[in-house]
């Protein structure tokens, strides 16, 4: 069973399992409400706007922009051996934003807010999988 992210604490629901399996195929999935058109990324199974559960999958295009970032020097217990790492917010598909690690940074220019980034899939150890940002 594939799991999303470096760590998780919640019970793993089928929806998340499916999301992780799509990631393994290279697909980063968002959802769109068929009733009212609201788009969700990270994806949701339910629409909090109109209370429909009739959702369709849409794909996230890999090219996006860096909205903001931080460099975590003092990590939570669960990430004890990983610091320092960069946590960033990226925007994709003209307005859908999510959080992820930003990797492959080699210069201050790579950390410029508003610069182009790509969202990519990376397999981790222990059957885990995650999406990441890299400078484009």
């Amino acid at each position, binding site marked *: 069973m594939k799991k999303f*992210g470096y760590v*998780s*604490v*919640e019970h793993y629901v089928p929806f998340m399992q499916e999301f992780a399996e799509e990631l393994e195929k290279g697909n980063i999935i968002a959802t769109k409400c068929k009733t009212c058109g609201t788009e969700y990324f990270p994806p949701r199974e339910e629409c909090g706007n109109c209370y429909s559960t009739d959702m369709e999958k849409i794909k996230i295009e890999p090219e996006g922009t860096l909205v*903001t970032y931080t*460099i975590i020097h003092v990590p939570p217990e669960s990430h004890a051996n990983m610091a320092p790492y960069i*946590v960033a917010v990226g925007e994709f598909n003209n307005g859908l934003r999510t*959080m992820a690690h930003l990797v492959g940074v080699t210069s201050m220019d790579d950390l410029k807010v*508003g610069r182009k980034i790509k969202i990519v899939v990376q397999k981790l150890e222990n059957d885990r999988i*995650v999406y990441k940002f890299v400078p484009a």
Partner: protein
Amino acid sequence: MNDVAIVAAGQSKFGKRTDAGLRNLAFEAVKDLVEHADNISLKEDIDATVIGVAGDEFNGQGAPAAVLIDEIGMVGKPTIRVESACATGTAAIKTAYSLVKSGLHDTVLVVGVEKMTAVSTAKATELMARAGDIRWEYPFGCTFPGFYALMATKHMEEYGTTKEMLSSVSVKNHFYGAKNPKAHLRKEITLEEAMNSIMIAHPLNLYDCSLISDGAAAVVVTKADLAKKYTDTPIYVRGIGSGSDTMQISRRPSLTSLTGARIAAQAAYKMAGVGPEDIDLAEVHDCFTIAEIIAYEDLGFAKPGEGGKLALEGQTYIGGKVAVNVDGGLKSKGHPLGATGVSQAYEIFRQLRGEVASEGRQVDGAEIGLSHNVGQTGQFVNVIIYGR
């Protein structure tokens, strides 16, 4: 709008209280209230209690209100436990206000308390990181400072806010915290020290972050008709406003303002019939220095983007445009989650009654005080305006 009053207040010493558990902290705050109350008997006059505790994991006690009401001698009277993350304290006061205003109870004792230092800093960081979305944010190891650092980076980029501006907030809050005998870290710091301490979550360093503290605070809330029976100098709840925000910080259109705080401030000002220019002192939720700068803007003390300048110019010291966090704030006084919002009321209660002069931080002639209490990263916000 002067229907509900606060007639007594108390607070424990904040700090790393290895000598005290959750129950002892609550007792200390209530004892302080009793010793400073003008004319009130808790046994006879209190009709119900509201207990604010944010987290069970920090201290290990399940259903903490039960042990606390027993400890403070309130067994038999109705009680309720309230939780709204770091905004738990004001949520408890708001609950008491509602109970009194509805007529269900006449006089209510509010106690906000947290015991946070029994776990390691790494564990506390972990527990607070879980206040981010455990499905989509926690898996990336974004800490609580990390969330506010994301806002700081954006604020600096968009408005040119500088590290020096952030550090100025810390210097001010330590300046006043050093004068507050109940503060956790009573130590003045220089701008240079503040700017050069160890990095926690870039661009926020150690002196940009509030403390992990133990502590408690208590107030008595009653009907205005009864207030003068308990004290000659009550303070009144003039306005309350609240707001909320998205769980995931990435879903917000703005990362330089807390939408919930703007909604809360607007509602509180409207109810009180006052504006930002009328506020003599403000207790704002400076869990991080950037949070105080954003609070200046959300509360209307500065225009969007100009909060940093207000801090740099020293306009939020006593004698400036508006005195902010002159008890040391969360930064220096400390931030025991459930106690913080009640401690803000405690400070305003004493300031409006002119009781802080001996500590060298009295806002002379203060008539109106504002409390701004933020849960998580703005998912819960309460703004309460108090007047004499």
